[in-house]
């Protein structure tokens, strides 16, 4: 791992020959066995052509999918030894997700959408509005807490989703094409927000097929046909 910037920091993601084959038929080797360490405080971008296995990688790292080979350690916890319910709890407590499609509940206000991330984590009811407002203020939406997502711009929606990902205080932020649906202005605002959050200590993994976006990472990982490789030079997507 050439570009690991802070070897002293503890690893957040640790892949040990992790691979995933969808059973099919026909079986699809969506992620080929490989090693990877992402340390606390890193900002990593993942690039690769469509269908190369980027989302598969993110699903494994986010405990949404279980690898069929190797072992994946999150915050030093061997997730292969956990029960399904424990993996779910771990996911809710330690990982924040940001998706290209936002996945906001259309009939709930921005604040309620953010509060949803605290429902299953056992945050007391009375603390939630305050924490949600703080998270929204942090993404620059302090004035729009009661707005419905359907009345918001794409950039605003993605910032609500980021606030939702932040509010449970995860150790890892996984973003799958967060700027994919945004114009350049809004994309830039979201990227700057992610950079600020990273500077404050949160580990960020960002998937993109935009090379300009990928260049923002301090470290870039390329996936091709399900194989991980780490290099400055990225092929055309």
């Amino acid at each position, binding site marked *: 791992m050439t570009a690991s910037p802070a070897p002293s920091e503890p690893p957040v993601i640790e892949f040990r020959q992790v691979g995933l084959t969808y059973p099919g038929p026909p079986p699809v080797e969506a992620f080929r066995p490989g090693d990877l360490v992402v340390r606390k405080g890193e900002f990593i971008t993942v690039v690769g052509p469509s269908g190369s296995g980027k989302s598969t990688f993110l699903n494994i790292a986010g405990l949404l999918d279980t690898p069929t080979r190797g072992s994946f350690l999150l915050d030093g916890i061997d997730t292969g*030894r*956990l029960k399904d319910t424990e993996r*779910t*709890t771990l996911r809710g407590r330690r*990982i924040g997700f940001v998706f290209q499609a936002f*996945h906001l509940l259309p*009939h709930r206000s921005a604040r309620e959408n953010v509060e949803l991330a605290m429902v299953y984590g056992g945050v007391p009811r009375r603390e939630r509005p305050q924490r949600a407002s703080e998270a929204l203020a942090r993404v620059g939406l302090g004035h729009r807490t009661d707005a419905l997502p359907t009345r918001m711009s794409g950039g605003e929606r993605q910032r609500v989703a980021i606030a939702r990902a932040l509010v*449970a205080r995860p150790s890892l932020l996984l973003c799958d094409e967060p700027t994919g649906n945004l114009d350049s202005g809004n994309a830039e605002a979201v990227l700057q927000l992610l950079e600020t959050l990273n500077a404050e200590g949160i580990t960020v993994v960002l998937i993109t097929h935009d090379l300009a976006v990928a260049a923002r990472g301090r470290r870039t990982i390329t996936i091709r046909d399900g194989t991980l490789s780490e290099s400055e030079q990225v092929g055309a997507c």
Partner: protein
Amino acid sequence: MLSRIGEPRDASSQPDIGRSLFAPRDLLAEALAGMLQRPARSALTMLGTVLGVGAFVAVLGLTATASSQIDDRFNVLSATEVTVEDIAHEQDKFAGAAFPDDATDRVERLNGVRHAGVLWMVKPRRSAAELAVTAAPVGHTGGEALSVVAAAPATLRAAEPRLSQGRLYDDFHADARQRVTVISSGIAARLGITTLETKPAIFIGGQPFTVIGIVEDVQRQPDVLLSVLVPQTTAVEMWGRPTEGGRMLIATDLGAARQVAGEAPTALRPDHPEYLKAVPPPDPKSLRTSVTSDLEQLFLLLAGVCLVIGAVGIANTTLVAVLERTGEIGLRRALGAQRRHVTAQFLAESGTLGAFGGLLGTAIGTLAVLVVALIRDWTPVMHPVTLATAPFIGLATGVVAGIYPARRASSVQPAEALRG
């Protein structure tokens, strides 16, 4: 899935992860939000449950209301009425009339008897002309086709008549075998009698009888309103004892009727109690069931059909919601919701739909009972158990309907649901 249940875990390398929660209040809030998201669809979905529970409440309420009206009539009249029939000739062809002359005294001595007296329809011995009832002594041969009934003074009292004019004949008239009569207002009108001031008489077989009372109505034995009533002693003197068809009417205190019915034949004829057959009032409970159970069952069946339709409606809507909201389910799972939390959420949504339908149905059913009672001038009666259970029937319908969709929801794979 790599679950290793039962395998001891290394405590030092696997720190405590904690637990995912879904507090009941959060569950309810999510269920309500899910239902209110699409108010029109929710309302339509509830319709079947509303109808089912409404029909259930209305049927039970209406039967309770209707049978309580029947009960009332039993309590004041039928339950306090006993008749004793003369069946002597069935037992012994030469027995003659079974009732003794002092029948009233013998029976009125029994506990709980208010009034008791015999009555029989007078039969002509030779020709019908003997008993032709006319308004004038001659001319109207053939007369009005009215029957003559011999009744003891106590019989009249037992029938609980309402007099419009005059009075009833009493023991004095009977002992003196006076030729007096009491007639109904209907007969009085047919015979052209409007007032008793002039001491009008009617003629039975040409013999004058003074009309001393006109009866508007009777509570028991309404058939006597179709007859001309004369004291039994007078009837015996003029036309002889009845050979058969004699009856006794007994009015009792509330609750005494069955015992009186058991004792009366022996009190009347200690030597031949089998000559008499006492008919106690019917058991109000059995009568009520026979009156209402058929219809009630039919309507309850209909209510059940409505509930099944309601359940199918809720199941369908919830299933559509699950399919529409796979993204939301995936998101919730990403945010730490367990499978059972997803199951609980959709069960709660369908249960809420059912419960609201049940509440609405209860209200509508109750309203229907009230309206019918108001129109019929009845006292509405609703068993508290019916009102208390009805909303829960709706709830149960919703929960049962939600089982399959909720299982579908919990088996959604988060990775697939979040793609795209």
